[in-house]
């Protein structure tokens, strides 16, 4: 295919795409114009019925909890695929894992303080996920990423204990399984799958939302363990072996 042919094809395709894009842009709703009824309904019913002040949290973990369970298992399956592909393909090298990339003491001090703070912020995001903005997903990523700082400021050897596969595999499975168990518990009690089992509790406290707290922690655990596994594999398979070629 010559350059001229390509340009002709691109011009035709570009014009078509531009026309469709312009047509659809002309028809989009105005800024801030929300048409669906669900947002209004949720805003009205969640606080009186579930007593959770974060409507988004209650929506994700209760009103559409079944979808969230699907999403959780998407992450679970994706991480499992990565593990199957990458784990054990290259032999572990103690020497590579002990290579220190950072020579600055100041950076290490800052990183040491940041690791604790990031993990704490992550746990806080999970714990208060249904009271204030946050939730199991965001908190879980923050916890895992805080721990991953250990690799960036120190060595793979420092990070490894926090992403140990003997520990992470059961934790991840527990997180994913606990979600289903909460759902089945409602089924056993003669209600719908994932029906909220406990009373709504006190509005605006950690004791609100009933099953939401359990499901939220299950997701937090699953996400944190999944990302730690993912980080550990990527760093070990892709980044740590570079130490050999650099030195």
């Amino acid at each position, binding site marked *: *295919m*010559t*350059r001229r042919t390509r340009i002709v094809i691109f011009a035709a395709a570009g014009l078509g795409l531009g026309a469709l894009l312009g047509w659809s842009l002309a028809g989009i709703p*105005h*800024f*801030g*114009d*929300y*048409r669906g009824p669900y947002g*209004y309904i949720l805003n009205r019913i969640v606080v009186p019925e579930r007593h959770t002040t*974060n409507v*988004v*949290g209650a929506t994700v973990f209760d009103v559409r909890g079944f979808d969230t369970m699907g999403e959780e298992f998407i992450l679970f399956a994706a991480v499992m695929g990565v593990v199957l592909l990458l784990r054990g393909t290259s032999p572990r090298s103690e020497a590579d894992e002990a290579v220190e990339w950072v020579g600055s003491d100041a950076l290490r001090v800052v990183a040491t303080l940041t690791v604790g703070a990031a993990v704490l912020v992550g746990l806080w*995001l999970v714990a208060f996920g249904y009271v204030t*903005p*946050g*939730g199991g*997903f*965001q908190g879980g*990523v*923050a916890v895992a*990423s805080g721990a*991953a700082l250990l690799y960036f400021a120190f060595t793979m050897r420092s990070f490894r204990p926090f992403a140990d596969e003997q520990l992470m595999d059961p934790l991840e499975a527990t997180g994913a399984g606990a979600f289903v168990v909460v759902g089945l518990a409602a089924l056993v009690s003669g209600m719908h799958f994932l029906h909220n089992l406990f009373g709504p509790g006190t509005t605006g406290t950690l004791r609100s939302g009933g099953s939401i707290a359990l499901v939220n922690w299950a997701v937090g655990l699953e996400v944190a363990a999944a*990302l730690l596994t*993912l*980080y550990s594999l*990527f*760093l070990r*398979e*892709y*980044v740590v072996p*570079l130490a050999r*070629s*650099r030195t």
Partner: protein
Amino acid sequence: MTLIATIVPLQATVFGLVALGAAAVVLTRDPLRQIVVSGLYGLILVATFVVLQAPDVALSMLVVSTVAYPLVVLAAIARVRGGKSEQHEPEPDREEAGSP
């Protein structure tokens, strides 16, 4: 019960920054620098969601765009380059330009 809001100056500012940031990500050619620029672009989006009063989305954006995504891309680039110098290799697409 529809509510049509008007764009206030703060929102206009972040929208402008989003446009600039997105252009900056596309115009950065070196993938390694692009990670940093895309992380900054992610932070702009975080600010956008805060301004639009969607703190949950802002938190998700924060952890994904500035922490999780750069880490995975960084690992992939490290692997692809295999510890070689940071020179650009010629793009293979160019070679077939003259062939019929």
